């Protein structure tokens, strides 16, 4: 992918609207082109700024109660009430994207969901690490849990010289993402790790940004260079986080309720 195309697609990337193949392409380009990465970074920061300012909008005091009252009483009653003037700002978690593009030491993470000692999450992390290591070291790919992952891996094996497979639409290849992850390839975390390693083996995830929070990662829990994939249960969403090329990576996870969580990761090289 050349620069003009990458720049033309930056909003589509930001909005998680690219299909898997294009996503990989543009991220690979950003990894190799500092100028485009800089521009994308600035674009994304501007969006984040606008979102922050929007979340500071004052919400009228007692709004939720009046809405419920309206639902209860139907079309009568609440109409005569005058809504309270906007006063107190309901505090929102800051959505600032903490982007540290430097070898920074991270703040230790104290969020409950990482400490919840999730058995399944830990197992997935371990599996992912092992997969990444095996692939990076060129060892035989080991048995993966699902046939989806196998097919994916075989598919990725047909990569181009740059290490990215750009000639196929993965969904057309019969690969059905289990997690709707638009960066990487969905499926199992192992498969995602495999895909990511082809893009940027030397990357470490330092932050996760989800709606409502910017979460610095505990360096002890972040895998070292050549890292794999984390899977967490966070606020009712299945979250898959994988380091990916360039300064950042973007995922969308769709929960069963159809809500999208937009994640941005920042990498330290």
């Amino acid at each position, binding site marked *: 992918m050349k620069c003009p195309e990458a720049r033309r697609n930056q909003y589509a990337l930001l909005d998680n609207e690219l299909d898997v193949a294009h996503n990989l392409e543009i991220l690979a380009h950003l990894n190799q082109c500092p100028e485009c990465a800089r521009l994308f970074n*600035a674009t994304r920061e501007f969006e984040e*700024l606008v979102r922050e300012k929007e979340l500071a909008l004052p*919400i009228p005091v007692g709004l939720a109660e009046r809405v419920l009252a*309206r*639902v*209860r009483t139907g079309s009568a009653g609440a109409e005569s009430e005058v809504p309270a003037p906007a006063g107190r700002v*309901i505090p929102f978690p800051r959505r600032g994207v903490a982007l540290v593009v430097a070898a920074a030491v991270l703040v230790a993470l104290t969020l409950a969901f990482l400490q919840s000692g999730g058995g399944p999450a830990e197992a997935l992390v371990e599996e992912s690490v092992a997969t990444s290591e095996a692939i990076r070291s060129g060892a035989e790919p080991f048995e993966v849990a699902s046939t989806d992952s196998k097919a994916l891996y075989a598919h990725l094996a047909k990569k181009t010289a740059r290490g990215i497979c750009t000639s196929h639409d993965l969904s057309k290849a019969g690969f059905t993402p289990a997690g709707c992850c638009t960066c990487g390839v969905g499926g199992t975390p192992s498969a995602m790790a495999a895909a990511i390693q082809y893009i940027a083996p030397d990357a470490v995830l330092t932050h996760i940004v989800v709606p409502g929070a910017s979460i610095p990662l505990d360096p002890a829990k972040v895998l070292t260079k050549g890292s794999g994939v984390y899977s967490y249960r966070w606020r009712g969403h299945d979250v898959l986080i994988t380091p990916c090329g360039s300064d950042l990576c973007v995922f969308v996870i769709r929960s069963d309720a159809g809500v999208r969580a937009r994640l941005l990761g920042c990498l330290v090289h």
Partner: protein
Amino acid sequence: MTATPKALTAEEFDGQFRPLIEPLYRTAYRMTRDPVRAEDLVQETALRAFRSYAQYEQGSNFKAWVFRILTNEYINLYRQRARRPGVVDFADVEPVYEEAAEERQYFTRDEVDTLRERLSDEVSQALDRLPAEFREVLVLAVFEGFAYKEISGILKIPMGTVMSRLYRARQALQKDLRAVAEAAGILKRAVS
């Protein structure tokens, strides 16, 4: 304990609806630019959603369904879409991406950091200055995180129009804020 959708109580509905109240309010505020109208819209939306809950397909995107109700209410009350015959909305026919033209990058990363420190109400005011059709898509895409396809369903416009308006909305917002920041001496005039 489990109520069928048709027998939903107000409390049960509130449990599902409550997390959407503030996002709905912010969207309604951006659409109407008036806190009183915005609250009115949210209350009407809640009432309509409650009354027509049986039409909501369980398991489908509840937020999108509710936002569609909000938008319908807003359009019915505040946005007359009367068109003169023969006039076509240019946005419906123009290409999605405008090549060359105004494809500018308005801020560097450092400049955005400066804006974050120095701006407060200016962003909100700039949003309010956007034309209504730009504001609508921007709010749904950037603040509420709806997919282009979902926005297309909520606003009942083609997806190409969604993409085009969103792109133009973003460019317009950046251009406006750039001018505001330069006029206030917050940013130096860019050498273009």
